[in-house]
């Protein structure tokens, strides 16, 4: 049985309310943390090896230690709850069903960073969740966990929920900061980094919901103990949101030691592929990470078992591997069309590009147009190389990573499924009525090839 830290109390009815949460060990970490020094809390988080759970995987303790602390200038913790990466819905689950765990994490982190006013920037479409959070904040406040002079420590903290209004780009931390200031979500040039000049030009730390919730078990068990869970530099537990063609879509917590094969086929997690279909491909970390065909999913190119953690998923680089990303786990069965799926992602990134940098603004639209042509039987063979060329010229040439996020899915689809693109072009009519199927990239473990 896998270790659970965040969803440990998932089965307890009423865990979203204060009394139940408190009775089940809630706010014990906050009690402990408020007796520690802020620097010691940062130290525990560093020792835990916790990496940002929003997608980039940057070490949280290190990010915290970059925060500038000029005399007389307020600092802010801002929580990135703008979860918008296709395939990702884990933060929604935490906020909706475990709001107090989230608030406890926010409180401890605010204390560690010296943030007296902490903001939760939540995507606008999650319109019912601010009510849940605000009710939980009120409960926490009534019980002395927020407000003035918390537990007699002299520390004041307010948590405010700020709704966005539909813009994927606001999940990028500097765009989020611009949006929080009441502007368009155009990412800023870095440096200066938010840790020096963030919201209202004040030092700011932006962390993902799951990252901040993970601070609670880290304080409860100590950073060293937390670091013992997991594998290598992938410490602790990770939430995965599973969607696409699996028997049991939903949110799962893993301790990063299970294999990808186990994750997809065991009843504890995804429960296999429905309707007797076969696995074709998987995007394990949200739509922007490279898609991998089944034959590279369970075993790396070196023939080693692939595990559900940062290092193992990225083994082989982009040539044969992928990324842990945000944990948005998208599974495609053999009835799915890679060209069509890639086209929807290209449309998504085109819709969400802020328009600031021309490679992304123009390139995403161009890629979508070409993919649409190929999908609808109007493609030319030269379009495939053109797509490759466009994505290559977007990647790395934009202010923020949205350009890379738009380029990678297209690159990976061509890299691994070029024959399927070619088939669309050589069989324009047939491609409208049936899909390409598995070809040579079926899961070799569960489907004998040949």
């Amino acid at each position: 049985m896998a270790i659970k830290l965040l969803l440990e109390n998932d089965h307890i009815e009423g865990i979203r309310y204060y009394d139940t949460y408190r009775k089940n060990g809630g706010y014990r970490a906050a009690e402990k943390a408020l007796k520690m020094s802020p620097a010691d809390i940062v130290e525990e988080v560093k020792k835990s090896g916790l990496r940002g759970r929003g997608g980039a995987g940057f070490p949280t303790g290190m990010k915290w230690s970059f925060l500038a602390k000029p005399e007389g200038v307020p600092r802010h913790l801002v929580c990135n709850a703008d979860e918008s990466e296709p395939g990702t819905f884990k933060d929604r689950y935490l906020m909706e069903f475990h709001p107090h765990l989230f608030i406890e994490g926010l409180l401890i982190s605010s204390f560690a960073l010296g943030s007296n006013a902490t903001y939760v920037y939540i995507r606008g479409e999650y319109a019912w969740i601010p009510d849940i959070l605000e009710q939980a904040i009120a409960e926490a406040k009534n019980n002395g966990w927020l407000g003035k002079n918390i537990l007699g420590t002299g520390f004041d903290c307010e948590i405010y929920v700020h709704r966005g209004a539909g813009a994927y780009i606001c999940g990028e931390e500097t765009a989020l900061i611009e949006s929080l200031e009441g502007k368009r979500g155009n990412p800023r040039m870095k440096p200066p980094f938010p840790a020096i000049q963030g919201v209202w030009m004040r030092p700011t730390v932006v962390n993902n919901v799951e990252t901040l919730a993970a601070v609670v078990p880290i304080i409860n068990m100590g950073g060293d103990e937390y670091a013992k869970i997991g594998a290598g530099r992938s410490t602790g537990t990770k939430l995965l949101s599973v969607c696409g063609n699996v028997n049991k879509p939903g949110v799962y917590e893993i301790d990063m030691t299970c294999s990808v094969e186990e994750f997809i086929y065991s009843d504890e997690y995804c429960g296999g592929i429905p309707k007797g279909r076969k696995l074709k491909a998987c995007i394990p970390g949200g739509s922007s990470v490279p898609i991998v065909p089944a034959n590279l999913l369970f075993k790396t190119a070196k023939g080693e078992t692939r595990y559900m953690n940062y290092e193992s998923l990225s083994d082989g680089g982009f040539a044969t591997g992928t990324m842990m990303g945000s944990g948005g786990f998208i599974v495609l069965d053999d009835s799915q069309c890679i060209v069509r799926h890639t086209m929807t992602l290209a449309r998504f990134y085109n819709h969400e590009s802020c328009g600031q940098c021309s490679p992304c603004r123009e390139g995403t639209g161009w890629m979508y147009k070409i993919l649409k042509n190929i999908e609808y039987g109007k493609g030319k063979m030269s379009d495939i190389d053109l797509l490759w060329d466009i994505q290559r010229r977007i990647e790395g040439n934009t202010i923020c990573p949205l350009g890379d996020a738009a380029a990678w899915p297209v690159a990976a689809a061509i890299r691994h499924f070029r024959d399927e693109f070619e088939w669309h072009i050589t069989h324009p009519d047939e491609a409208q009525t049936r899909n390409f199927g598995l070809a040579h990239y079926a899961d070799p473990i569960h489907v004998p090839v040949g």
Partner: protein
Amino acid sequence: MNIQFSAEKMTKVKEIIARYPEGKQKSALIPLLHLAQDEFGGWLDAPVMDYVASILDILPIEVYEVATFYTMFNTKPVGKYLLEVCHTGPCMLNGSDDIIDYIKEKLGISAGETTPDGLFTLKPAECLGACGYAPMMQLGKTYREHLTKEKIDQLIIELRGASVN
């Protein structure tokens, strides 16, 4: 239409502005635009945006540029019920295209159009964070998930009924 928040809404407006540091009231813009859109007919007409600008003591252009950037703000009138059906990758894998086609056929409108009675607008949407519960749509403040053609039939009957009462 008289563009003025009610006294009760004005209390809420003040409470929102107070969340941000003094002089940084512009931060309240997006929350206020949500309030204004809910209050003044489901979309943001120029006089409504000018009114929000006056509350926050900012230029109208600062409001327009934000209202036109974010997908959730409607700068044109929409039907009483805005059906925003997600059609990004994970929803597509689970048949969202069929759901969109079914709604088009049933209501006799194309994507982006409103029914002549002003009740329904269909808008294909990009990922709404409900990928595991696909196909889905956003309807007002909530999501309708695991959509089927039967559920669309029921929903439309339900909403037509609600609009009569």
